[in-house]
């Protein structure tokens, strides 16, 4: 196994990776910005290395600085975490060119999956169902309208290089498309340096269900079942669970097989997630593939008993998977709630000084935390400050455990989404397993004005 790993990330995921490394006797190097000097992960690592100013493009996205840190600390491998450089093909390539191991798939596959149009084409070739829509970029708003008429409104206008909901908009009519096209194209150009747009038929009231896969470099691959991530605000996940309360055993099996087919066809390696939209008839359509560890990976760990970071490191080191698909079983039910520094009603971020942080304890209650009780939550990074994960025998018990834990959870000094989470997990649509991706719009936000 590696003797020293550099973590090119921050916050809770850096702490999470350090924890596994400590168990596996791998020394760790944290890289950090000036804004993160006091962050827990910097102290938890065996060594830490300042790589720049607070803003991500002056620190966590500075490839040269990260490579320099790896060289100077003699790290053998780099784990990119999620977000930041984790899906930057050029970074993966550079890491390998420098003679280091990148914990993740090849840069070619990262690039292919990062281009949503190329990914759609690859998945269709692999026999995975994709959302009906254009298989090429649309040149301009006229062509966009032409294909939208063909597939029928409503459609989703999407940036090929998009992510996190940026450059993406649902449009119901030609007029809406006209208004939305240029703005989203511009935004995609600004954020991703690529203004290519494409059109997908809008799947009405879908669920967001994704399949976790693991593949070694010797041709072995397994899927670790699904995670349902339908509770989202601003196209970002808030609550995730495994297994899905909605899927039949038959659909679960077909989705898993579909994901494995894609992995084998693409010769994908390391951990990855294939995201699907699932309609109310249980038809599933490829949405995108994430070529990295996901924020919500803990729910999969809870129901499979596997440590996904350990699996990633073993695969990157060249080890073979030691289990087969038939060895894997779903054990109980797990739910994750993302704790955001943001207003519970408007979802506007709330940076500031924490004055209190109380984490509930209990059997089957797990925390992944980026902060401590006197941390400064800065405006420079994602508002997610912690994750609360529960595991129980049944979904009902898991929801009870989560509800209790959320009520004992205390955050003071900044606004948090705890109030929102408490409302969501006790809402009948959620507890009955009926929630879809429009839950926040259709049920949560209306419930606020009714009060």
């Amino acid at each position: 196994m590696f003797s020293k790993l550099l973590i090119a990330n921050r916050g809770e995921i850096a702490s999470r990776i350090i924890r596994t490394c400590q168990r596996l006797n791998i020394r760790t190097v944290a890289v950090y910005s000036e804004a993160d000097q006091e962050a827990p992960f910097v102290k938890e690592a065996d060594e830490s290395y300042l790589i720049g100013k607070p803003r991500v493009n002056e620190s966590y996205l500075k490839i040269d600085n990260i490579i320099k840190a790896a060289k100077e600390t003699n790290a053998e491998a780099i784990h990119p975490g999620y977000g930041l450089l984790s899906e930057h093909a050029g970074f993966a390539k550079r890491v390998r060119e420098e003679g280091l191991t990148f914990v993740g798939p090849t840069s070619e596959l990262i690039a292919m999956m990062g281009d949503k149009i190329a990914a759609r084409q690859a998945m269709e070739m692999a026999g995975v169902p994709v959302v009906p829509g254009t298989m090429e970029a649309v040149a301009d708003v006229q062509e966009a309208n032409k294909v939208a008429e063909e597939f029928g409104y409503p459609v989703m206008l999407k940036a090929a290089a998009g992510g996190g909901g940026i450059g993406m908009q649902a449009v119901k009519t030609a007029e809406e498309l006209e208004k939305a096209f240029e703005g989203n194209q511009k935004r995609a150009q600004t954020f991703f340096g690529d203004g290519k747009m494409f059109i997908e038929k809008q799947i009405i009231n879908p669920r967001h269900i994704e399949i976790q896969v693991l593949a070694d470099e010797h041709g072995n691959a397994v899927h670790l079942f699904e995670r349902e991530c339908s509770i989202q605000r601003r196209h970002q996940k808030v609550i995730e669970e495994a297994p899905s309360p909605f899927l039949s055993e038959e659909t679960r099996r077909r989705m898993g097989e579909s994901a494995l087919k894609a992995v084998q066809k693409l010769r994908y390696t390391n951990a990855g997630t294939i995201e699907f939209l699932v309609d109310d008839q249980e038809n599933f359509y490829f949405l995108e593939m994430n070529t990295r560890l996901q924020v919500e990976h803990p729910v999969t760990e809870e129901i499979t008993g596997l440590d996904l970071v350990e699996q990633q490191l073993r695969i990157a080191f060249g080890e073979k998977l030691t289990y087969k698909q038939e060895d894997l079983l779903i054990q109980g039910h797990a739910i994750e709630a993302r704790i955001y520094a943001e207003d519970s009603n408007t979802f506007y971020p709330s940076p500031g000084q924490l004055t209190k942080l109380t984490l509930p304890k209990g059997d089957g209650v797990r925390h992944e935390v980026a902060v401590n009780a006197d941390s400064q939550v800065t405006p420079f990074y994602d508002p997610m400050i912690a994750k609360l994960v529960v595991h129980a025998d049944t979904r009902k018990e898991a929801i009870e455990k989560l509800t209790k834990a959320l009520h004992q959870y205390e955050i003071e000094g900044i606004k948090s989404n705890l109030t929102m989470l408490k409302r969501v997990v006790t809402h009948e649509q959620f507890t009955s397993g009926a929630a879809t991706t429009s839950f926040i719009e259709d049920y949560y936000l209306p419930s606020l004005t009714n009060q």
Partner: protein
Amino acid sequence: MNEIKASMAGSVWKIVANEGESVTSGQDVVILESMKMEIPIPAEQDGTVKELKVGEGDFVNEGDVIAIIE
């Protein structure tokens, strides 16, 4: 005269209305970026942008004056 203040700490992502431009109440003057989210900062009254106190890329703290509307 009316001062427009930052509703939270963040950086100035975009200037939407330049100095000398007339704006109506509720119209966005600048867009801040904080915690990976864009937060539009609107004018609170009709008028003209007399002075912009910030430029794109500048960091502002909560309460900092962003622009003066006259």
